[in-house]
């Protein structure tokens, strides 16, 4: 029998897992965990249900130029929030293709980070934004850069007595944009063949890439990671076909994609190249457009 713990406050939740936390499975909405329990993929001794903590962990706010999201924010809330309609377009691009409507209504940011499966769409975006995760425990908060969060497939840097409390990142400035793309066999409810998120900043006169962060899943093994070499190559370059073609080669040598029944590694690599080019152009176009229209 599985014991279900249902705290009403974060403090209560944290005390419930202060000891023997490794026996406890933390449940956000359950959109990822419940099917896995049903399949006996995981057989938890105890489940800590966070649904009572909405008043503490469900918020999106901007403080200065920092955007903070509580762990219980749903994908639907992100899509509906005005904050994400401009430079944070990556969230909208991911959100629109995130599962189906029911999953978007249920799935939480904290759950997405905690599940850390190879197909989580939000993690690459957070990595591209250089976001940080705030872990809460009775000993206080601990910060984990999201790029260091996923240790292995379905394994994150979270101590047994910790709960994901918040994720935060800086709002990109008006020389920057974010974009996301995923490719699958159908338009919704799809485990992607490949996904990629990008943060791109142009220099003052808009001619060169001042900064870029590229995150994609399945770089090595099955975890989302930064494509550092590709970024390094692109930094300071003009956006021209030749540059992009060379960047595609760098990316090609940098990623080690695997084959499975969904698609071959070769196809994934060819998609990666396409998506890289598309995201660079997409970000550049939107920054230029924004400058022209004064947004």
């Amino acid at each position: 029998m599985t014991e279900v713990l249902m705290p009403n406050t974060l403090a209560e939740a944290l005390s419930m897992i202060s000891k023997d936390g490794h026996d406890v499975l933390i449940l956000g909405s359950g959109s990822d965990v419940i099917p896995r329990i049903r399949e006996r993929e995981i057989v938890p001794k105890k489940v800590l249900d966070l649904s009572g903590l909405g008043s503490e962990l469900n918020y999106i706010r901007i403080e200065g130029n920092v955007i903070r999201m509580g762990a219980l924010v749903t994908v639907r809330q992100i899509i509906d929030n005005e904050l994400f309609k401009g430079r944070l377009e990556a969230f909208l691009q991911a959100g629109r293709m995130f599962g189906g409507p029911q999953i978007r209504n249920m799935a939480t940011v904290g759950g997405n980070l905690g599940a850390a499966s190879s197909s989580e769409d939000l993690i690459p975006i957070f990595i591209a934004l250089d976001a940080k995760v705030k872990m809460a425990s009775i000993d206080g908060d601990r910060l984990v850069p999201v790029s260091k969060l996923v240790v292995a497939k379905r394994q994150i840097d979270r101590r047994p007595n910790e709960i994901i409390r918040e994720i935060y990142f800086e709002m990109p400035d008006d020389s920057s944009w974010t974009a996301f793309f995923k490719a699958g066999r159908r338009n919704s409810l799809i485990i992607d063949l490949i996904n990629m998120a990008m943060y791109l900043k142009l220099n003052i006169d808009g001619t060169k890439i001042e900064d870029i962060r590229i995150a994609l899943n399945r770089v090595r093994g099955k975890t989302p990671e930064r494509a550092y070499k590709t970024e390094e190559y692109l930094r300071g370059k003009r956006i021209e076909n030749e540059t992009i073609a060379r960047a595609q080669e760098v990316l090609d040598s940098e990623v080690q994609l695997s084959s499975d029944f969904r698609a071959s590694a070769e196809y994934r690599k060819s998609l990666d190249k396409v998506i890289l080019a598309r995201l660079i152009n997409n970000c550049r176009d939107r920054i230029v457009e924004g400058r022209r229209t004064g947004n």
Partner: protein
Amino acid sequence: MSEGQLIYSAIGSSSQRVDIREKVDGSLKYFTDMKMDGMLYGVVFRSTVTHARIRSMDVTKAISMPGIRAVLTSRDIKGMNAYGVIVPDAPVLAYDKVRFYGEPLALIAGDTLEQAEAAKDGIKVDYEPLPVIRNIDEALKNDAPLIHNNGNIARSMKVERGDLARGFKDSYLVLDRDYRTHMQKHMFLETEAGLGYLDEKGVINIFVSGQGAHSYKGQITRALEIPPDKLRIVNYPEGGAFGGKDDVTIQILLTLLVMKTKKPVKLVLTREESGAGGYHRHASLIHLKTGVSKDGRFMANKAHILLDTGAYVSFGPSVLDTAMEVINGKYRIPNISVEGTLVYTNNGFSSAFRGFGAPQGNFAIENMVDELAYELKMDPIDFRLLNLLQEGEINSFGNPERDTMGAHVALTEAKGSRLWKISKKGSLPWIKVGLGVSFGVKGVGYGPVKDVSYAAVEVIPSGLVKAFFSNADYGQGINTGHLQIVAQKLGIPFENLRTVNADTAECPDTGSSDASRSTFTGGNALINACDQLIEVMKPEAARMMKVQPTEISYADGKFTFKEGSEVSIFDIASFMAKEGKGTKFIGSFEMPRVAKPIEGMIEAPRFSNAYGVLLSLVEVNELTGLVKAKAFDFYADIGKVINPLLALSQCESGLIQGLGYAITEELTYDVDGKPLNTNYTTYIVPSTTDIPSIDVRFVDAVEKYGPYGAKGVGEIPIVPVASSLTNAVHDAIGMRFRELPLSPPRVSSRMQQNKGISVLA
């Protein structure tokens, strides 16, 4: 509106489905919702290897586990322990060998589902592994291991007509091509499921999700040696079938569980079990060589169709016959040779699936037709029209053609489609737009096999007419369609009609809901039953009115002598009941057959055919290889349309299922023969966001022998989809795909090989 007008319009009106309310408000119970007192939960213990000899199986530990009431193996079966609608070659529970991954080996009944599941760990099987045959090519190798003792070929057929060599010699252009299609899962929302119990009279009652009733009963009594009067099969309202519940699924397993435990038992397959152990569409390999004259007339067609039937035959022979039937389209081809080979492999279990071999045959011939028209620089529709048989002409299988008029009309109307006017300029430089055509044929009914359907109507004095038939309503709406026929025939308002569907205790044998036959055969049998009702009731009415039978006439539920002097069928029923006379009338209908059958063929050629012309507009993304269907225009000849809304639903659903078949769906096995994608997460059916704009037009056509002119609509929509899409892709990017599905990796890799397309976006 007067009652009379309402009744007159029963045929051709979109009457509301009779079962819609409980389906929409959620009150209809499916098997997962049902429970009986003292009910046990059945689970199936299945093979975890693909091809092996069974050295031994030990279930002793499982029997002693908590809550376990029975663990059954082949030793608990008294009958022939085999099933299969055409050839009983599949063991109910395997004993000497397993031939596919997920084959049933034992049954467990437990007090709870969890206990029954847990007891699976208490069964040990010692296997001697055998090499796995993964496809048709491997099965036909000289040194291939044998899946059955009689070899890896389950059936061979050949039909020849004319002088093939001469035909090719006289041809201006001959193309020789290979086509391959893959396995498709039905993915019905409700998996194979049922609930059974033993009643106080010692009868085993089996409520099951299926497509008929009587054919299961025959197979169960044979496999388990049960007297027919001790078994009742009821097809309960269910969540889809598509052919995947046409042959026996869990019926025998469930009956055995009830027989041995003498308790109510529920058995519902998990999605993954259904994926591995359930049926799927045959993969095919089709060699096609076709010759045409310079002015675009067919000269010769040589086909060899090989189908992968998996580990057992099931409906394989019928599916093969149907693929052979459509490989000549409905074209005038004087010289033909059509060979068919049904091959055993270890790829699960192929069986009936909407279209029944026609989608595979159509994929080959309509790809070929498009290529020939293109090479001859002829319009694809004009080329088809030029070659389409006229009524009275002798067709490829030697019978006079009798019903291609609707096909001519459909092709001609398709020339006026909105899609011809749409710009082929893509929204982005790498998005290519194309338009494709395909012409599909699907026979209605079982072909040359004698097929007599029975159905009944009963007049209840309280004011109801009940219609009894056994072709199941699994969601397609046959309950509603059949009642419209009864309403039309008797002139009784819809609200006074009820159905009793697919219950062996009450319904005569109408056969199963398959082969697009239900409306045609069941509808006609009901009309015949109504005729008998009128014939028998007429003298009774005359007696009641004290007039001669010749002086009265029937209309609108009553016999009338003259204005104001009439008696209703309900009053007559009451009058007859008092005299102890029955008021249930059984009608029958024998499906017409072609004059000249082909020796050895059991499913084809058929007497009546439904036709469909599909135009597909696609967008091909040259960078990712993604093919998106943007629009379908479908022109169909299904005979007279009984219920336009239901017919439209059938068309939309068939087109979408065809879209999945062509692009996103593919049942895949690993090198060891284990299925890799058995649930909705891994097996990709189209979602609502993938569905194109769909326009369906029914051409004005009447089948002389059909009920009120109707044919059948269940299968024709899926038949031309894949070929229409590959033809559209050719129009978009100039490449012919002769292998399905049109998955992004396949399309992308072909484009990169052929064109060396740059991946600069």
